[in-house]
Structure formats: C-alpha cells, structure tokens
C-alpha cells in the first residue's frame, strides 16, 4: 500500500513553480560556476577566430575531430526529448509525465549546442551563413547535394519543431505564472500565455496540438540523426565511415544516450529542487526498462558495425578495427567505451533495486553517456587516422587545450541554459502533475500489486 499523500492544486503549483518564484541559493552557485566555464569556452572560440583553427589538434588527415564528435553526441542527447514526449504521449504512457518537459528542454538546448559545434569547427566561421540560400540577387546558392547543407536544415527544423512543442505544453503553466507575478514579468507571462483561461476547449486544443506535433516530429527525429550519420557514411573518402548501417545505428545510439541523459537530468532536478513527490521511483524504473531495451538494440547495431568490418576482411576496415583493439590509446578508449556504455550499466538495470535507486541510476546513466561520447570519438577519429590505402599519410590526433575547453563549455552551456529555463518556467508541467496526482504508484488487484503508471484513466 504505497498510497502517496494527496497534494492539493495549490501545493502542486507552489512546489513546481518554486524554481521560478523562489530561487534557491544553490541555483546561483551552480549557475555562476557553469556560466564561468561557458565564458572560458567563449574566450577559446574567440581565440580560434583570432588565430585560426591551427590552435586545435587537427592535422592532415584528421580534419574533423572533437567538435564534430561533440556535435553527434549532443544531437544524440537531444533525441530523448522527442523520444519520450512524442512516443510516450502518443502511446499515452503515464510515466512520461514528470519527464516530458525536462526531456524537451534538454532536446532544445542539446540541439542548439550541437548546432554550435560545426560552426565553431569552420575555418571561417564568420561565413557560416553562406550555407543558407540568402543571396538570391546574385544567384549564389548553396549546393543542396552537400550533407553540410542538409545538416543545418535538418537541425534547424528539429529545433523549431521542438521549441514549438515545448511552448504548446508550456502555455497552461505560463498562465499560472501570469497569475502569480506582477510588474513587467507579469506582462511578459501574459503575452506568452496567449489568453489561456483553462477552458475545456482550450485544454482540448492544447492536447490535440501536442499530439499533432508529436506525430510530425517523430519522422524529423529519425531523419535528423540519419542525416547526421550521412555526414560520415556517405563519404567514399573514409572507408570505415562508408557504411550503410550508420543511419539506424546512429538513431538508436542517440536514443540510448538521450534517454540516459534524461534520467540523469531528472535525478539532478529532484535533488536540486526537492521534487521528491513528482519524480518518483516508479518513473525512473520505467525509464530504465525502456533504456534496457534500447541498449540491447543499440548494442546489436554496434556489433553489426563491428562485424561488417571484419567480415569482408577489407584492409581499410581492418586497420581501424586493429587500431581500436590493439593500439594505445584507442584500445583503452575502446575498453572504457564498452564497459561504460554497455557492460556495466545494462546488466545492473536487470535489478529492480538498481532501477529504483536514484544514486545508482544517476551513476549508470552518466556511465552510458561517457561511453556514448567515446563511441562517437571511436567512430570518427580512427577512421580518419587510417583514411585509405595511402598509408604514407596515416596520422594521429590529440585534442588541444582549446578543444577540451570548448567541449567542457558545451556541457556547462547546456546546464546553464536549463538552469536559466528553470528560472523562467516550471520544469515539470503543472497540469500533468495535477492529472497524475490522483493516481497511485501501484494498485492492488486481488492479491497482486501492479504498476499503476502505464496508462491514464
């Protein structure tokens, strides 16, 4: 009998808006710290502009490295938002409730960060806008055959779509905030709330909009990471990248790291904002089950990728496998990657106690993302170091301090943006929380206790 104490509407409103209306001191401390790291990153980017990409560890043939690894990583993280919100919304999965907003916010900010990476990577980043068709008068167009044109368009579509998604879900909460604020802030919320009064018609429209957006965003979610994978897999110049499996492999990998990322963020928020009543054991338990399935599927694709290289015994593929397995530092990275992305966390999730332990889930999901970052690194760099049969030009890569700083700053940037968002908007949808309030974690049917989080009414 684990009936939860019943919360009143007022209680819900108060606790869930407390990030907005009453800011904990810790918020400032963390924001200052994260903001400081972001500033370091901005200075590093400034120096890149000032001195040139030479400051980074790039060379010939390793012309892509940390930044694009990081881009793929953040795009991966961003997949959680749609995965959770859209699929679960469509599937009416109950356990999504507290997670959706956080997941969507993570999506948007991770995506925005991912979008920054290729810009920072450009030799002339002040000319980045040239990849958009803007110069109609002179008839100068971007080349639509280029993945580098697909990429920004896919990412911006996804970014716009998921921003809308958040916004639609946010409207009722904005109205709550409107009602609880005064002055200029009040006017801003008033504007954003767009006249929300909570009528039945409005609720219905809002729900329908959410469902339509979910349905529209799903194909985008699949396509974005497929397109990102084509940045690599369509290149004949890098034999180990040139493989058809990349698109689904990248998508499933993205879901793996994305869902793990959401769990990490949920646990962090629960701890930071004290939302013990809203982010509950059964939520992360359910997410962990999902993660378990995704991880297995992802590992299957990884094995396929690995095997395909071995299977046809082509030298250019074999040298990359050889690098992964037998040469420092790649062999170490490979081992860490396998352990962290799969071998350690996945069997642990078989245990209910693990799935329901916040610290352990925090730990295992962090592991997953460490592993998944390394996975992208392993996919991208060794392939370039052993690019083709011109063994004369085979090379090595090591990141410079600038790359490391900027990469670190992207993590801080996402954290900063989430913190700032939390200052302005509730991170858990009030409405959803209220709807779910009446439900129990488990219900008894006869002598059995079953999960109560799978379906609404």
């Amino acid at each position, binding site marked *: 009998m684990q009936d939860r104490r019943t919360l009143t509407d007022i209680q819900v409103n108060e606790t869930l808006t407390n990030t907005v209306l009453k800011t904990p001191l810790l918020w400032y401390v963390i924001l200052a710290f994260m903001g400081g790291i972001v500033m370091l990153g901005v200075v590093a980017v400034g120096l890149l502009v000032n001195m040139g*990409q030479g400051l980074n560890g*790039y060379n010939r*043939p390793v012309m892509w490295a940390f930044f694009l690894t990081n881009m793929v990583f953040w795009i991966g993280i961003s997949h959680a938002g749609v995965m959770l919100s859209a699929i679960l919304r469509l599937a009416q999965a109950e356990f999504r409730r507290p997670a959706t907003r956080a997941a969507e916010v993570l999506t948007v900010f991770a995506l925005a960060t991912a979008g920054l990476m290729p810009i920072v990577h450009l*030799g002339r980043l002040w000319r980045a806008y040239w990849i958009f068709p803007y110069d109609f008068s002179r008839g100068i167009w971007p080349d639509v055959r280029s993945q580098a044109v697909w990429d920004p368009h896919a990412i911006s579509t996804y970014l716009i779509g998921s921003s809308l998604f958040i916004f639609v879900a946010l409207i009722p909460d904005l109205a709550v905030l409107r009602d609880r604020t005064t002055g200029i802030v009040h006017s801003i919320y008033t504007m954003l709330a767009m006249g929300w009064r909570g009528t039945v018609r409005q609720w219905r429209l809002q729900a329908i909009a959410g469902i339509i957006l979910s349905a529209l965003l799903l194909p985008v979610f699949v396509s974005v990471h497929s397109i990102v994978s084509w940045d690599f897999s369509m290149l*004949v110049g*890098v034999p180990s990248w040139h493989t058809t499996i990349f698109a689904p492999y990248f998508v499933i990998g993205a879901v793996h790291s994305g869902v793990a990322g959401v769990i990490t963020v949920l646990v962090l928020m629960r701890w930071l904002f004290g939302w013990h009543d809203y982010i509950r054991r059964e939520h992360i338990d359910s997410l962990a089950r999902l993660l378990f399935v995704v991880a297995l599927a992802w590992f299957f694709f990884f094995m396929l990728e690995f095997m395909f290289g071995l299977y046809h015994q082509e030298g250019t593929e074999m040298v990359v496998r050889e690098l992964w397995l037998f040469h420092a530092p790649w062999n170490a990275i490979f081992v860490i990657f396998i352990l962290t992305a799969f071998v350690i966390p996945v069997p642990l999730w078989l245990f209910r106690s693990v799935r329901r332990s916040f610290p352990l889930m925090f730990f295992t999901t962090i592991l997953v993302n460490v592993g998944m970052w390394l996975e992208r690194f392993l996919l991208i760099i060794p392939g370039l170091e052993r690019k083709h049969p011109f063994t004369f030009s085979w090379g090595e890569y090591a990141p410079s301090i600038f790359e490391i700083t900027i990469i670190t700053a992207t993590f801080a940037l996402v954290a900063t943006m989430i913190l700032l968002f939390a200052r302005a908007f509730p991170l858990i949808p009030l409405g959803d929380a209220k709807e779910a309030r009446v439900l129990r974690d488990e219900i008894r049917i006869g002598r059995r206790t079953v999960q109560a989080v799978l379906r609404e009414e």
Partner: protein
Amino acid sequence: MTVRTEWDHKWSMVVDIDRCTGCQACVVACQAENNVPINTEDIFKQSRAIEWIRIERYWEGEFPDVKARYLPAMCQHCGNAPCEPVCPVYATYHNDEGLNVQVYNRCIGTRFCANNCPFEMRFFNWWQPVWPESLRNQLNPDVTVRNRGIMEKCTFCVQRIRRAERTAIQEERDVKDGEFAPACVQACPTGTLVFGNSNDPNSRVAQLMKSDHPRRYRLLEHLGTEPNVVYLKKVDPYLKEEAHNGSH
C-alpha cells in the same frame, strides 16, 4: 576579361612512376609557382605541411632486398570528384576543361571535401600563412595568396593554362601541345610527369593515356572517381613472382 569557354580542352596528366627518382624538384617548383606557404619545422611537427604535389615513398621488402617505391601524388582532378558534391557552398566544382577548381573566396572551411577526397590531396590553411616581408617579393602575382581557414590543392596550375589560352586567343589559334606546362611538369627532370589536352588525340598525354597502354592504371580506380591523372606502372624486372603488387 571574360574567359572563353568553348575550348575543346580536357587537361590531363600522366605520371610514369618508373621514371620518378623522388628528387622533389616538382614539389619545390609547385611551391614556388603557387605561393604555397613555407612549411616550417613547426608545421611539419603538426602534420600540417602543404605540398600540392608530394612524393610518397613506400617501403617494400626487407634488407637487403628492400625497395623504395615513389608515388608523385597531386589532385587527381577526378571526373567524378567526391570532393565536389559535399561542399555546401560550391567552393569546389568542376569546370568544363576537366579541372577540379577551388574558389578560395567561397570556401568557409568545413573540410568536408578533404575528408571525402580519397587521395588525400586537399590541404587546409590552419594558420594565416606568413612570409618575411622580403620573401613576399617572390610571390607569384598570378596566384591568390590564400587566407587561413580555407582549403587549397593542386589547380593543375590554372593560371598557366589561362595565360596560354589568352595568348592563343590573341594569336587566333588553339593552344599547342607542349606549349606550356604546369610548374611541376616543367621542372621534372626525368620526364615522369606529362601534361596536356587529352581531348586532342595527337597530344603526348593522350597517346600515353590510351586505354591499351600496357602499364596504365589509375589510383583507387575501384572507387569510380574517374581520376584525370593516369599512372604508368613501375617496372621491376626482378619483381618476385609471389609479390602482391597488382602485377599481372
């Protein structure tokens, strides 16, 4: 001045690797002609040396039966160039004389093209190229000095092609075979490199490129990039029977 485009020109190169001695004359000639930045010790340390044409040296066998095999390698001006469609801004494209052209002004430095060049023939300006003031006197006024942040590679000495074509226009004739040569070809003492208009069946290059030439091959031909540079195989009369050298 407008560029006459109705030429029936396809500029091609033949590399007879049986002749190459690895002497590096072509490399320095290209650097002199094309304002390639000085490859300092630091640049080499960073594995960022720029050599539009480079001599790759492969070891074969062990002492005392060891061989050094030389491969002069420059942009292959692929007919079906993988570097071109990946460029988001058309900074690299194919012109109607068979050249893979690089528009420095347009390049934004994605390095996509470099990754997709299977021949490793694209070079990035990681730093702003600098010359001591007095050495700038040597820079070729016909060739752009590239800024940092952009890609560059062998152009088949397009400025020499244009100069020859302009002269031909003025003299109301076509460009003659052997009338001019890219810097590397001009320098190469052993005659390893041969350049010309392969659309002209009588040109030396067309003769050597013929598909029935017994030593003809192209680099990574299986990729289907249709390189415009044809190689003639190394001859090794003492080649071991069992050696795996694509010798048939």
